[in-house]
């Protein structure tokens, strides 16, 4: 970047600061035709030296010189702050000088020129003289409403009828200043000086200076002696006597005059001579066109560089562009040099530095088209053209030493009077050879292109180039009169565009559309982090994010909680795409919410389960106790009656023993009740212990009891409870009936459990409780009383494993 600015600064210095800043007291003869006036004036300006103008009139004045010029130059300049002192001395009138040796046509004024059919010329083609003549003509043709249009139409008519030349000093009729014609006559000329009867203008010629001038006396006499008419109207001999139709401009006329005569040179060329229709016609247009084309080339360079994918081709575009821009700017610089000096000539030679490089650059472009980028072997065939280019430039730049390229007389007017030497033709042949080679390669590659456009566009370009060359040779105005430099630049650009649009160069012109329609949020960043391309939905990548991505592209990066950046390196930058995490975040949040809700629901269900469990337990307890109450209610009620009857009992001992037996029974039944709820079996030993307890208590009542329990193993609670109840009821009956002794034996017989009692009395009148018999029947068992001849037996049988199958 710094280098670019340095180059630009250098260019500005070259364009603006190269003029020599001369200072000192000089008399500058700026206005053409003022040589005699300056020569007459010089002796009256002590300390001043006569010098030709090296810069514009205004620059010379601002540098302290006294400049001879016309009032139409001086007065507007003073009004704009250039020059403070104006000394008019001479009155110059635009007249017609008719060479009577060549024509005897009757000429009285402007309009008579329309009919004589004799060539008319201007004595000079300088810009100022054109302005003076155009002003005089305009005022002459219509003194009330002078217009440039009338003057131009008049001159165009002259041009078409009899001929009109700008530099027509040998024409029979000349539009010139009166003192010039008088001087020609003094030198032997035979000019009739005619002041046009329609009217003309007289201009004051004098000195413009920034400092007051002190002129020695006797100037008027000297001027008259030099053949110059004085500003007050006094004229030397040889001038017409009647100047009534001539008028001078007043203060308020100058602005109008400048409007009338502005761009006179351009208008004369275009509207009178119909030349320069396709190129610039005056200095202002030269400068503006150069700047405009330069800007257009730089713009083109920017757009093409933007479209290019390959870096080597982008470099070619840069080189081409800078060559064209350099050429145009050098030409612009040369235009502004006031004299045809050595610097101007070096600039002229410098044109070839750029011009000769363009074919080489185009050749290089066609060479790299069908090669991959960075291919080394490409350099070898391009060495010869480059060496030839360097040698050609050296040959041209050293032309002053050998005159092989351009031949002109040293010290002469080289700009207009020169011819081409053999070096020029050699250089041009090589340059054209390179161009032809580039065109041939372009055509060949176009023919190999698979796309019709790739074949058509190179062909079209070559056809257009041939047409231009043919038109140039045939001097068709569009080709012949147009600017050759600009045309070469345009052709170079067209060459490149033909290659580009022919599809021979990979371009990225569709990337904009691709990005515009890309559903993914993608951004392309250059090496400096600037966005090159971006899809519509992509959010901008901040500087800090870019810096972090540049450090480590492997790690994705959060822009915010809903956007994540991913990056991959690309040439000279990176591609960044944005992943939208909002859906994922939303799903994650929903999942988290769902999990929270589920956890809460689970906790609620757990609590509900526990509550239900507690309720069920309470309910079960309640049911249990209700069942226990129902189970024990009859026994407790019976026990209560026995206890109430105890005081009236005759043998309270037996009743007390029976009550104790009942209490024991209730206790063990409660045990069995709860064991039944637990679902656990009752070991045979424990049942035996219960039975022993009953037998022990029965003994307190006087009943001799012997109960034995065989190896029966664990019993189901229900079977054990029935056996226990059976034993209790049997012992109770024996105690009440005093059926002592009582022997009982519990054993397992096959699949049956048998509990046998042998009481000491007859159990015939005894009835077991309905609950017991019902329970035994329900379990598939039975209670049987048997008469055993000398004893009675009571037997309870139950299925051992539970209910019987029948």
């Amino acid at each position, binding site marked *: 970047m710094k280098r670019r600015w340095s180059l630009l600064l250098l260019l500005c210095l070259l364009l603006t600061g190269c003029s020599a800043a001369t200072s000192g007291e000089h008399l500058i003869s700026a206005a053409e035709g003022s040589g005699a006036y300056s020569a007459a004036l010089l002796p009256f300006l002590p300390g001043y030296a006569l010098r030709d103008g090296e810069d514009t009139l205004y620059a010379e004045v601002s540098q302290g010189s006294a400049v001879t010029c016309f009032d139409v130059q001086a007065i507007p300049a003073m009004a704009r702050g250039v020059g403070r002192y104006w000394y008019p001395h001479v009155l110059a009138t635009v007249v017609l000088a008719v060479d009577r040796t060549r024509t005897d046509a009757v000429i009285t004024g402007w309009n008579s020129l329309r009919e004589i059919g004799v060539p008319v010329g201007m004595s000079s083609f300088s810009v100022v003289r054109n302005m003076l003549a155009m002003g005089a003509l305009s005022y002459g043709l219509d003194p009330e409403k002078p217009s440039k249009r009338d003057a131009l139409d008049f001159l165009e008519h002259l041009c078409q009828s009899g001929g009109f030349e700008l530099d027509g000093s040998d024409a029979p009729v000349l539009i010139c200043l009166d003192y010039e014609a008088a001087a020609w006559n003094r030198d032997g000329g035979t000019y009739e000086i005619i002041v046009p009867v329609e009217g003309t203008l007289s201009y004051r010629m004098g000195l413009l200076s920034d400092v007051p001038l002190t002129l020695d006396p006797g100037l008027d006499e000297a001027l008259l002696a030099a053949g110059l008419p004085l500003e007050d109207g006094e004229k030397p001999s040889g001038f017409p006597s009647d100047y009534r139709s001539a008028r001078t401009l007043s203060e308020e006329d100058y602005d109008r005059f400048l409007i009338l005569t502005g761009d006179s040179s351009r208008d004369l060329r275009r509207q009178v001579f119909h030349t320069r229709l396709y190129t610039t016609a005056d200095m202002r247009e030269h400068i503006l066109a150069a700047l405009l084309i330069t800007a257009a080339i730089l713009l083109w360079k920017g757009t093409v560089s933007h479209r290019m994918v390959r870096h080597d081709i982008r470099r070619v575009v840069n080189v081409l562009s800078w060559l064209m821009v350099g050429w145009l700017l050098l030409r612009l610089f040369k235009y502004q040099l006031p004299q045809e000096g050595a610097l101007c000539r070096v600039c002229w030679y410098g044109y070839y530095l750029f011009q000769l490089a363009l074919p080489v650059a185009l050749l290089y472009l066609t060479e790299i088209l069908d090669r991959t980028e960075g291919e080394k072997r490409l350099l070898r065939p391009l060495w010869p053209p480059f060496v030839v280019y360097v040698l050609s430039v050296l040959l041209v730049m050293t032309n002053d030493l050998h005159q092989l390229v351009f031949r002109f007389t040293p010290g002469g007017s080289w700009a207009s009077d020169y011819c081409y030497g053999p070096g020029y033709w050699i250089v041009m042949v090589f340059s054209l050879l390179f161009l032809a080679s580039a065109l041939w390669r372009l055509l060949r590659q176009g023919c190999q292109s698979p796309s019709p456009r790739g074949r058509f566009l190179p062909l079209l370009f070559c056809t257009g180039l041939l047409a231009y060359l043919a038109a140039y040779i045939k001097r068709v105005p569009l080709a012949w009169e147009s600017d050759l430099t600009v045309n070469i630049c345009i052709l170079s650009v067209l060459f490149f565009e033909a290659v580009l649009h022919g599809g021979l160069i990979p371009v990225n012109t569709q990337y904009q559309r691709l990005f515009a329609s890309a559903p993914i949020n993608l951004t392309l960043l250059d090496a400096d982090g600037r966005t090159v391309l971006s899809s519509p939905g992509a959010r901008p990548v*901040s500087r*800090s994010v870019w810096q*972090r991505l540049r450090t*480590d592209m492997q790690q994705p990066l959060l822009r*915010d909680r809903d956007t994540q950046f991913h990056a991959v390196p690309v040439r000279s930058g990176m591609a960044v795409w944005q992943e939208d995490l909002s859906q994922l975040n939303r799903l994650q949040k929903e999942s988290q919410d769902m999990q929270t809700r589920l956890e809460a629901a689970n906790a609620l269900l757990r609590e509900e389960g526990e509550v239900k469990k507690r309720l069920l337990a309470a309910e079960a307890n309640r049911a249990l106790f209700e069942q226990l109450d129902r189970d024990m209610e009859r026994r407790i009620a019976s026990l209560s009656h026995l206890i109430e009857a105890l005081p009236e009992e005759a043998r309270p001992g037996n009743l007390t023993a029976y009550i104790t037996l009942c209490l024991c029974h209730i206790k063990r039944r409660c045990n069995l009740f709860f064991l039944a709820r637990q679902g656990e079996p009752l070991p045979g030993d424990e049942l035996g212990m219960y039975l022993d307890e009953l037998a022990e208590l029965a003994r307190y009542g006087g009943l001799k009891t012997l109960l034995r329990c065989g190896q029966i193993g664990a019993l189901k609670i229900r079977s054990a409870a029935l056996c226990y109840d059976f034993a209790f009821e049997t012992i109770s009956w024996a105690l009440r009936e005093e059926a002592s002794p009582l022997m009982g034996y519990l054993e397992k017989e096959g699949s049956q459990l048998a509990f046998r009692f042998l009481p000491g009395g007859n159990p015939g009148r005894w009835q077991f409780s309905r609950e017991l018999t019902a329970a035994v029947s329900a379990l598939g068992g039975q209670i049987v009383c048997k008469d055993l001849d000398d004893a009675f037996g009571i037997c309870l049988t139950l299925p051992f494993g539970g209910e019987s199958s029948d």
Partner: protein
Amino acid sequence: MTSLLSSHLEDCSTSQYFCFSVRCEVCGEYWYSSSIPFSKAAQAAQHQEKKELYDAIYQREKERAKLAAGQEARERFSQCPVCRRLVCDACFLICDEMDLCRECAARMKEPGEPVAT
């Protein structure tokens, strides 16, 4: 402010470099500090036996990097005097009466220009 920033700095460092981020509490965008490479990143991978030493160096450099990131963030973040939130320059407005975050300024109808766009 420094302590507030320190508490908001999120560690995005890896074994190769140190980087910290701060999230604007208004727009939600993350700002990332300049990445500072770990001086022993290359050696640490080659010398596993010096792991303990390199870990210590890593922690020391990370602390320094965190301080630097805090200083860097201080130039880009401000604390809203009303809501006390940490906001980036794009969300912090220079108002006539008092500089505020964008949301507070909108709530109070205070016009202002953002510190940075």
